[in-house]
């Protein structure tokens, strides 16, 4: 990539101080495999892009938001009504949160179906699962901040679930709530998590995840490798810069268009200010990304044999999560042969479960 149009002294000055040549050389060699399913490779970048949008819009919101029960709702109302383009920033923040989590799930499932978790990328998988967990934590903590009826009761239900965990449940719920009940202390605490703790941890984990991805390069699924090796060729690649990147820019721009449209046409609602003393409204339910476990817990009878239904449900989820996190490790047997059918089956089953139960949770 010649830089004939750049004034020579500029690049030399930076080059001397930052030594970017090695990075440029590395990036110039980064490639992305080209096969029938290349489209899924964009979703990691989209998730990252949406996260950056969250950070930017979140920082803007920080200029006006106040994290106390007396002022939180009113400050959000102020942003929506009095601050110029406040409605836009807030709605983009709320919509982008949802799109980011959706994108993260798509990214995870595409990794499963394209087997990108295989050795030596197990740590990438683990850090990715960690990031998904962080994204959900962002969603859960952020949801309370507008302090409207839905936020308040969704948080109450959510932290009640935490309390049902055996042994540590009570302490865990107290830690989350900042007390015995959801209240001002919870709001302050969630705000702290949302703008400081979680971003800090996410930055570290994200850097690790990206570094690992750069180190190992982009993986190709086994069937693609086999398909091309039969022809005596390696899997075709495209350069990351500029080919893949230009395409990714298009995807990011498309995402921006979608976000803008959603914000303008379906603005995020303000709701009604939370009243802790009012009874919970009928049909309270969490955001869509928590609907599947929520609905599952609703279906479980209050007692299964001698155990409390909720406990059984939570333990079930815990085991499922552990099994899923350990995917790269049980995906291959002792001889190193991949358990293809198991992995595909597990992926399909999980997608089906999440999709079905989320839909049921939404419509019931």
């Amino acid at each position, binding site marked *: 990539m010649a830089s004939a149009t750049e004034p020579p002294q500029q690049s030399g000055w930076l080059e001397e101080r930052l030594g970017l040549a090695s990075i440029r050389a590395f990036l110039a060699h980064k*490639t992305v495999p*080209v096969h029938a399913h290349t489209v899924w490779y964009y979703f990691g970048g989209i998730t990252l892009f949406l996260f950056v949008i969250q950070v930017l819009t979140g920082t803007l919101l920080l200029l006006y938001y106040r994290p106390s029960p007396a002022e939180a709702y009113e400050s959000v*109302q102020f942003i*929506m*009504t009095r601050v110029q383009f406040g*409605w*836009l920033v807030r*709605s983009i923040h709320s919509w982008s949160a949802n799109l980011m989590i959706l994108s993260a799930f798509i990214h995870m499932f595409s990794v499963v179906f394209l087997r990108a978790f295989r050795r030596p990328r197990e740590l990438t998988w683990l850090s990715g699962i960690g990031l998904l967990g962080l994204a959900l934590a962002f969603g859960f903590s952020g949801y309370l901040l507008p302090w409207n009826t839905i936020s308040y009761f969704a948080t109450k239900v959510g932290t009640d679930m935490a309390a049902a965990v055996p042994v540590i449940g009570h302490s865990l719920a107290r830690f989350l709530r900042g007390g015995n009940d959801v209240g001002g202390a919870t709001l302050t605490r969630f705000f702290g998590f949302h703008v400081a703790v979680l971003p800090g941890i996410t930055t570290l984990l994200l850097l690790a995840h990206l570094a690992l991805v750069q180190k190992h390069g982009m993986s190709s699924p086994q069937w693609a490798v086999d398909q091309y090796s039969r022809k005596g060729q390696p899997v*075709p*690649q*495209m*350069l990351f810069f*500029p*080919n893949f990147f*230009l*395409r990714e*820019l*298009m995807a990011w*721009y*498309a995402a*921006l*268009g979608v976000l*803008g*449209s959603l914000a*303008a*046409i*379906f*603005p*995020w*609602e*303000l709701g009604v200010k939370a009243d802790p003393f009012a009874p919970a409204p009928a049909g309270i339910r969490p955001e869509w990304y928590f609907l599947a476990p929520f609905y599952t817990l609703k279906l479980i009878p209050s007692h299964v044999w001698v155990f409390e239904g909720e406990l059984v449900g939570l333990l079930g989820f815990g085991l499922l999560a552990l099994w899923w996190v350990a995917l790269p490790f049980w995906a291959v047997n002792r001889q190193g042969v991949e358990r293809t059918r198991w992995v595909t089956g597990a992926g399909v089953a999980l997608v089906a479960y999440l999709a079905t139960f989320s839909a049921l949770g939404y419509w019931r």
Partner: protein
Amino acid sequence: MRYGVLAFLLAVPLTAADSCVECHSVLEGKLQAPAKAFANDIHARFGFSCADCHGGNRNETDPEAAMSKARGFVGKIPRTAVPERCAHCHSNASLMEKYKPRQRVDQMAQYRTSVHGKRLASGDVKVATCIDCHSVHDIREVKDPLSPVHPLRLPETCARCHADAAHMAGYKIPTDQFASYRKSVHWQALAKRGDLSAPSCASCHGNHGAQPPELESVAAVCGTCHVMMEDLYKKSPHQPVFAAMGAGGCVVCHSNHEIRPPNVGMLAGPNAVCSQCHDATSAGGIAAADMAQQITTLDKALERSDQILANAQQSGMEVSEALLRQREGRENLVKAAVAVHAFRTAAVQKPVKEGLAIAAETYQAGVSALKERRTRRQGLSVSLIAIAITMLGLWLAIRTIEGRNTQTSQLRGR
């Protein structure tokens, strides 16, 4: 001092025996029931015993001695003697002061003036006495929700007799009052919303001195709560006319028991009340039609604003100030309905005019909100066009770099 006496008296049941209750609790059927019920009675809580009403001696375990006529044992008290028996204590001011200083002591005096009291005095035992309303043996305080005379249960208690056609045969009054009352706005407030201040039978008819209000005093009775209406009605042309006709004021239009939520249909339309007396061409008829039309106009204007504001709010626009103004507009609608009771169009005109001004204001707010929505969407289109151009440019750049044959030029190298 008072509390000392109270404490002593409260301590009495713990120490003094009540042989009546002790013996009767182990009997069966009708002899056992009163003893069992008495545990819930407020008189028991204050240390009274069966003997305090029925006579006899509570300290004697021997039935002959306990229920001796010499000690004043009366047994079952005849219905005609019940009020006096209760009044023996309840009309004794100095006695009542020892237990409940603020409680009234004129119930008996009131009862004597009531229809029930007068009929009982002439020997009619079918009428209500103290125990029919307050229950007997398990008498609870009025504020106790289980008491038959608790505000929420009072209408059913009256209805026990007054809605029973068989019981009321021979008296010349209808038995549909409770059924009618249940359709009323007051019953809604009482039974559905639990509003204890809502009127029921005793609120208008009195409790101990129960009798229907005189025709001239109906407006005053309603006016205890509906002050504004009574005020206007008294100064209106209807008052002297209704008085002369011997018609019962508010009842003429609003009925007595089945008081429905008022609406503009009472002024004009097929079920109008006004047209029952007023010809359409008469001054009254014209006034009624005019008032109805004004109120309808205001109602429609407010609804129009409601709709546009709801539309704006649905699309995420902020209209809370306008919605607050709408509240004021609706208050004007209420004021207009109240003003009807002056039975002059000018009186209704004033609140309607103010209300229409508010409705116009809020409608404008809705229009601006929708305009702002349009502006936002225009801004969105501009940015979408910019995005589309960029995407087109990116796509072209890709195509240019990779040439027409994207398959080969995508690959390693250009």
